[in-house]
């Protein structure tokens, strides 16, 4: 691969495993090869054994893996669509590991019985949830309105109510604690008086029933989020209360995912949305914030545009010098925090539980899965012995 200009996210963006040439070259169109769909072959720590659609995928250790053979001989991933069933399977010993919900983590696993069999882990997840505004909307065009809304929101209550305290308040689009995360950005902490003041400066004054008005128009808007995401709908309900306290009437509408994207996001038919982004290892967020990425189907659907951010985004992706990149992204975070195109709400925690039989887990900031090939079950505690060769 050759690029005309340096492109820092390049390596991470390829993200493709090594393909077996000898099995693919016989096909003119490699998308027709059964390798892709029926029996994948790669160079990873585990070999594909079997896939039963909707039921399970089975993997066996790859003895030739370049970092050595993984200790766990067989790994089975089961498909269990329902959270409650999943949790019961864990409790009955039918599965060894799952990701807990905050509710399960705080209220349903704090028993000696559970602790006797399972280890619980907790680390910052690689995603955040935000309230995004359509910036061409007459209400949200004004930075003061967005800052006012930010001050009206009590993020701590969101973390407590939605995540049962298992997460942290977000102030920007990066993961707290990583090299690119800037903790010293302009902040708009919860302060309803300041919120009212900022909104008043933007021309929004309380009307007779307490709802803010400007030129006879009440401050009413609809926030959209996708159906089936419980934490987002809870977030919406709490935000509704917060905004009502400063005189803003927010309606909530949840829409099925495909309709949400195609009918509302793509057509820019929304006032505000509650959504989340995952946080990638490379800090390049050109697609989300660049003013060149506001076209149809592109990710800057809120229509954010700031020449300095545009320039810094270019700068950040055109150099491999980590200090230079850090400087660019720190500045971007300051600008975003000041302009509040999104109100960054929270970063949740990942909450895996793993059976105590499994040893060798060493929690790190990145999580627990990074050393999966060195997990093991001591003799004596091994449960599924029929797989061993």
């Amino acid at each position, binding site marked *: 691969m050759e690029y005309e200009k340096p492109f820092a996210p390049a390596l991470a963006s390829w993200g493709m495993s090594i393909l077996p040439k000898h099995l693919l070259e016989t096909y003119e169109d490699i998308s027709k090869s059964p390798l892709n769909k029926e029996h994948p072959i790669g160079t990873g720590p585990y070999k594909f054994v079997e896939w039963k659609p909707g039921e399970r995928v089975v993997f066996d250790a790859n003895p030739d893996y370049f970092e050595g053979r993984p200790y766990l001989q067989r790994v089975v991933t089961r498909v*269990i669509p329902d959270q409650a069933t999943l949790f019961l399977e864990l409790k009955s010993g039918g599965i060894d590991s799952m990701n807990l919900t905050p509710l399960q983590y705080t209220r349903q696993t704090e028993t000696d019985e559970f602790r006797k069999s399972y280890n619980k882990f907790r680390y910052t997840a690689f995603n955040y949830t935000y309230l995004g505004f359509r910036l061409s909307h007459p209400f949200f065009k004004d930075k003061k309105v967005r800052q006012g809304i930010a001050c009206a929101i009590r993020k701590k209550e969101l973390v407590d109510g939605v995540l049962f305290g298992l997460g942290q308040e977000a102030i920007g689009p990066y993961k707290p604690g990583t090299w690119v995360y800037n903790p010293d950005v302009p902040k708009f902490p919860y302060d309803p008086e300041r919120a009212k003041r900022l909104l008043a400066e933007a021309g929004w004054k309380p009307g007779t029933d307490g709802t803010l008005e400007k030129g006879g128009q009440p401050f009413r808007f609809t926030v959209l989020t996708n159906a089936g995401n419980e934490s987002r709908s809870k977030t919406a309900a709490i935000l509704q209360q917060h905004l009502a306290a400063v005189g803003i009437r927010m309606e909530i509408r949840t829409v099925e995912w495909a309709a949400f994207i195609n009918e509302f996001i793509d057509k820019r038919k929304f006032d505000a949305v509650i959504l989340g982004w995952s946080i990638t290892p490379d800090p390049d967020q050109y697609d989300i914030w660049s003013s060149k990425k506001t076209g149809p189907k592109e990710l800057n659907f809120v229509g954010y545009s700031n020449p300095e951010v545009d320039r810094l985004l270019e700068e950040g992706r055109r150099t491999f010098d980590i200090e230079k990149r850090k400087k660019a992204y720190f500045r971007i975070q300051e600008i975003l925090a000041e302009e509040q195109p999104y109100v960054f709400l929270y970063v949740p925690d990942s909450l895996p539980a793993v059976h105590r039989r499994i040893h060798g887990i060493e929690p790190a900031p990145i999580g627990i899965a990074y050393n999966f090939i060195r997990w093991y079950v001591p003799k004596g505690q091994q449960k599924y012995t029929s797989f061993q060769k």
Partner: protein
Amino acid sequence: MLRYVVRRLLLTIPLLVGISLISFLVIHMAPGGPIGAASDLNPKATAEVRERLKAYYGLDQPLYLQYGRWLGRMATLDFGRSFSPDGRQVVDKIRERIPVTLAINVLSLGIIFFVAIPIGIYSAVRKDSWFDRISTVTVFTGFAIPTFWLALLLMILFGVKLGWLPISGLVSLEHDSFSLAGRAWDRVRHLVLPVLLAGFGGLAGFSRYMRSNMLEVIRQDYIATAKAKGLPERLVVFRHAVRNALLPVITILGLSVPDLLGGSVIFETIFAIPGMGQLFYQGVMSRDYPLIMGILTIGAFLTLLGNLLADVGYALVDPRIRTG
């Protein structure tokens, strides 16, 4: 009779085409499309990638052409390939789901018949007795209780507390290493809860239906005649009443034919059973047009077939209809 059957069968062809056309239009009217799952909010999916994906699936052509091609393939019973990333044959995807769905539905239908018919008969014969009242309350409880809730309670009791039954899925992790008998037993254990629950929920409709049929028949003159002849009650009930009360059951059986292959999404989700319900649900959610069309067509065909079977069956057992 034969002419009638042949005529009805031929009539199903335009009906099927009509149903498929409506289904096709409706699913294409739903917002979004098959490539959305891979390309929405994906920074790597550029406009060019999207166009190529559309062309790959033939979605860039006008709708009537797409339908025409689908219909042409269907004429040779080719369901086409799924639009999901696995790209497998729709027929294969449906075929692998049928056994479990069919097994659960046949077994639970069996339970419903064997339990609901006696309940219905006895409730009618002993109308307003204690048995009638208790059974009424029980079957309606089964009907009214949300399946997923009862399922969770039973999972907690039999799976977690007592440890007698597995909680979800079709087989144990080590299923393949069991003996033949062990494997069969393993499957039975996994099916107990789903089948019982599906049966419990269906008791109400059927037993009430049987009861009201029975009450209707018991009022007839020929029953009074039979009683007046001095026949023992058992004979009156089983020979004269039940046989006639069972007639409408044929209709229900006919209408159940498409249900045999239709799974319930809630039910399969809670028990993590990879059945037809989940397949269809996922198909709809990912706008997998060939898969949706395949399942809908099979469902439509079975419905029409079930209706025909019911009509024919009715004619066979009831002389009044045959001559009329």
